């Protein structure tokens, strides 16, 4: 399935998607799927790791787990807003707590997916996020 990849901010042909999740299996499997989508992908095990990676400015879209030890997903989102980094974010989570979803969506994120999610749902969310910029 070929797909049109819109130009990202950095002008690269293939947008960079960063995955931040403390779950190893997610870090293993998700980047491969994203590459099959035609994106460039990198994975980080914590929010801290991502912030100190230097990939901030290059990231076109952030795929972010909600509950992580240390800085949580929403906390990272706040931190990025504080730094003026307006990266579109897709939250992924295994928790089916409606209140979190409402709160997070209120803050204006691009997407919210419940694990396990289908590849189609993920792609749709990514496209919406990239088109928003």
């Amino acid at each position, binding site marked *: *399935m070929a797909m049109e990849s819109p130009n990202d901010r950095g002008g690269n042909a293939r947008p960079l998607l960063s995955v931040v999740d*403390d*779950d190893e*299996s*997610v870090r*293993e*499997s*998700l980047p*491969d*799927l994203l590459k*099959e*989508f035609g994106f460039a992908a990198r994975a980080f095990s914590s929010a801290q790791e991502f912030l100190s990676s230097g990939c901030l400015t290059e990231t076109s879209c952030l795929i972010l787990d909600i*509950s*992580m*030890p*240390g800085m949580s997903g929403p906390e990272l989102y706040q931190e990025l807003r504080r730094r003026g980094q307006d990266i579109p974010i897709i939250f992924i989570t*295994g*928790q*089916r707590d409606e209140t979190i979803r409402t709160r997070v969506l209120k803050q204006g994120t691009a997407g919210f997916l419940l*694990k*396990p*999610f*289908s*590849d189609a749902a993920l792609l749709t969310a990514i496209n919406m996020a990239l088109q928003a910029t």
Partner: protein
Amino acid sequence: MNDLLSLIALPAFWSGNEPSQIILIVLDALLGMLNLDFVYARLESPGEAASVELLRMSESWRLKLPAPEICSVLRIWFQDEAEKPFSPVRKRLWDEDISVIPVPLGINGGMGTIVAASERASFPEQTESLLLSVAANQATVGLHEARLLTAQKQLAMDLDRRVAERTVEVATTNQELRREIVERALVEARLRHEEQEVKQKEEALAKARSELAKMVQITSLGVLTASIAHEINQPLSGIVTNASTCLRMLSADPPNIDGARETVRRTIRDGNRAADVITRLRALYSKKEPSPEFMDLNEAAREVTALSMSELQRSTVVLREELEDDLPSVFGDRVQLQQVIFNLLRNAADAMRTVEDRPRELTLRTRRDGENRVQLSVKDAGVGITPQAAEKIFDAFYTTKSDGMGIGLSVSRSIIEAHQGRLWATANDGPGCTFWFAIPCNPQALADGEPGLKQADSSADAA
């Protein structure tokens, strides 16, 4: 002669035994018999203050003087006269001269006196005196008999009265006794009923305890479900992602066989991970009734920590296990004891939730305690507890957590006590506190296969 016979027959007339009546009959007889102008009698009754005066008068004398006056005059005469019985005296009364003779009744006139009076100067003649004395004798006898009969009657009445009283007393006592018997029977019945109630309550209590433990199972399950669901969702999510990737890789031109192979490998691994969690879950929650058995506390503890591991890691809790080798087996209910361990681990993790300046260290330790006991402790580096709270936290529904159930520690204590053990908490030397429980390896008095009710465990354990 006739008169004499009449006098002797007099007793037939006095039927009522009333002294006055007897004397009046005698007086009437004398009045007629001797043609007296009046005849007077004074009766002394023992014990009674007033004496009785009786008077009978002839027709003519009835018109002359009223009876009371005659009585008072006679009284005066014979008061002073010191009673010369049977000595007639000639006196003047009203405007007549009369002969009066006092006749004593009873010994020395103790019962009274009859005074016969006549205007005739020759009164009394010899026969008349004789008749008077016979009459007096009859009167005396009659009075005696009357008194005797009265006394007898009185006695009989007294006796009757006393018998009646006694009968009433006995009847009352009987009634009281009967009432007491009834009351006793009621009390006994009530006691038996209460015994039954107590027994029922004890059974209900035992049942409630086991239901509570079951409820802890269920509610803990609710809390556990969140982390279990998480545990299962992780591998499931990986499976879906890897499979999606696999499809795309195989559909690529040319197909990415090596990549696909890798995704399949990961899928199998994640599938096994999920199955593992299910197996552990099933093992933990399959039992319905508490069923004690000889079990290894270390093994049970390891299962609980394995299940809690992801949640602990998510809270950045560092778990240290110090399980003593060759820990003796304990006789207990595996599921219930695991419930307790799970509660303690969860509480310890919660206590360290706000800790930032030091590692969130949680130490689970088991060791042998004396000959017949095994001890497990969970030590945290959290906010700790005050000595006052150290006991209160075991109260049902006491909680410092805003979302806590508070029921965990109270039920945990019940479970440990049902194992004839003890559950308590101490403050650490450093930050945080330690929760301990100690249970016997071989509890005594096991009834129906269930661990007996609690026994006070007197030994204190130092950290």
